[in-house]
């Protein structure tokens, strides 16, 4: 079933940048630096990367669940970073930069899976 919701160029750029981020983040899941942060940290970071990837797939298909998943992942990620005292303000800035166009086009997105 082809989606009838046309994806704006801005969201396409967001998705492509997001996929590039995933490509670079994915190997970090099992990098020695991440592993040093704790036994549980690679698992959590892996979960964040996987759900970010799924959220970008949703966004690519203009699905509202993509935005919702992205927001949930963003808040979980930042909460973890606060807990481990590794907050990256640049990362927050770029995430907000991604969230703004998502919210702008949110109403034009498909409600279904």
């Amino acid at each position, binding site marked *: 079933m082809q989606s009838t919701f046309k994806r704006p160029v801005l969201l396409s750029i967001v998705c492509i940048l997001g996929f590039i981020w*995933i490509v670079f983040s994915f*190997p970090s*899941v099992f990098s*020695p630096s991440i*592993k040093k942060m704790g036994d549980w940290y690679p698992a959590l970071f892996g979960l964040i990367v*996987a759900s970010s990837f799924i959220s970008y797939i949703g966004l690519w298909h203009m699905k509202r669940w993509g935005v919702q998943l992205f927001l949930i992942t963003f808040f979980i990620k930042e909460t973890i970073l606060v807990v481990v005292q590794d907050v990256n303000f640049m990362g927050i800035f770029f995430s907000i930069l991604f969230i703004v166009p998502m919210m702008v086009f949110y109403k034009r997105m498909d409600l279904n*899976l």
Partner: protein
Amino acid sequence: MIIFGLLRESVSFALVSLATNKLRTFLSLLGITIGIFAIIIVFTIVDSLEQNLRKSVQSLGDDVVFVQKWPWTFGPDYPWWKYMNRPVPDYPELSQILEKCDGAQSAAFLVSARITIKYKSNSIERVNINCASHQYDRVKNFEIADGRYFTDIESASGRPVAVIGDVLAKALFPNQNPIGEMVKINGAKVMVIGVFKKEGESILGGSVDTEVLVPINYARSLVDIRNEDLDPQILVRAKPGISNDDLIDELTGLMRSVRKLKPRSDDNFALNQTSLISNQFDSLFGVVGIVGWVIGGFSILVGGFGIANIMFVSVKERTNIIGIQKSLGAKNYFILSQFLFEAIFLSLLGGTIGLFFVFLLTLVAGDSVGMEIVLSKSNVILGFTISILIGVVSGFVPAYGASQLDPVEAIRSN
């Protein structure tokens, strides 16, 4: 309950699909198996080496400063010719340190040599003998399993007594208690008064298991304790609460005054500490870890592509079944979860096999290299995490594509 039912049904669909295509399943999980094996084996070896190194460094004493002629660190601009003419630490310097160094809890003078040790017809050549002053037991970390350490009088008067390592005791005295027995060290009779507790192989060498310890005042009759080849050194342990850096600062001033060095002249001694060794190993392990990460990362990436490819093929093959399922009322999320679970299961199976091979290798390698190699809990968690992650990432796109198929078009496809 509906979720569990859905899960069960999705998993059973996935299992049936994997079982019907055994060769394809095997080939696609091979990539993940190799990837997980590569990355986890490197992490396991690095972790085990690090653990062994820390244990060895701890036995040397991480709060001990070694006053020696030569520094332990070597750089590109290492001025070895300057160090050549330095005097070796001397026994009288120990008393100056014990008397004047406020930051020192204890200190000992030590020389090491190679000797032949004999008991009746049993003889062992090239055994390491440590000749130490009395406070050695307060500077070096070791335990005595049987017998005792030297008394003050034995140390001061240089009595012919020795504490021997567990391996030596077993080799020289099979089925016999060595305490009180006389051994011959380079022909001289020495009484065994203690046996060190077995501590196993050390990554840095110099395990007490194969060493003999005698009082320095007795050793004067065996060796020349000022001989540079015996590596004379003074070991100084810091008081609790005193950092190694503070102790080094104090020892620098003290040694300069003891050796009467002019203010502008360079130090003619080296103050070494175990962190110098561990720091060098840390950087080495860091490099090995990154190399393993890159190699394993590429293997996993290839494995992930393999699974994604297989899932696309699987969706294509079962398109009309998906159409029938959807026309009978199957929801999109059911189709999605069915294929996603298949990918995760495939990846998890590959990862588990990879971890199993790592476990087997740790059992085999542990015995052959003489070092304990342990597959740690954190590495097992990491292995399973990567497997699930690969399954989700590589299986989501094909699964989502399957869930979005039009039932009518899907049924009509071949």
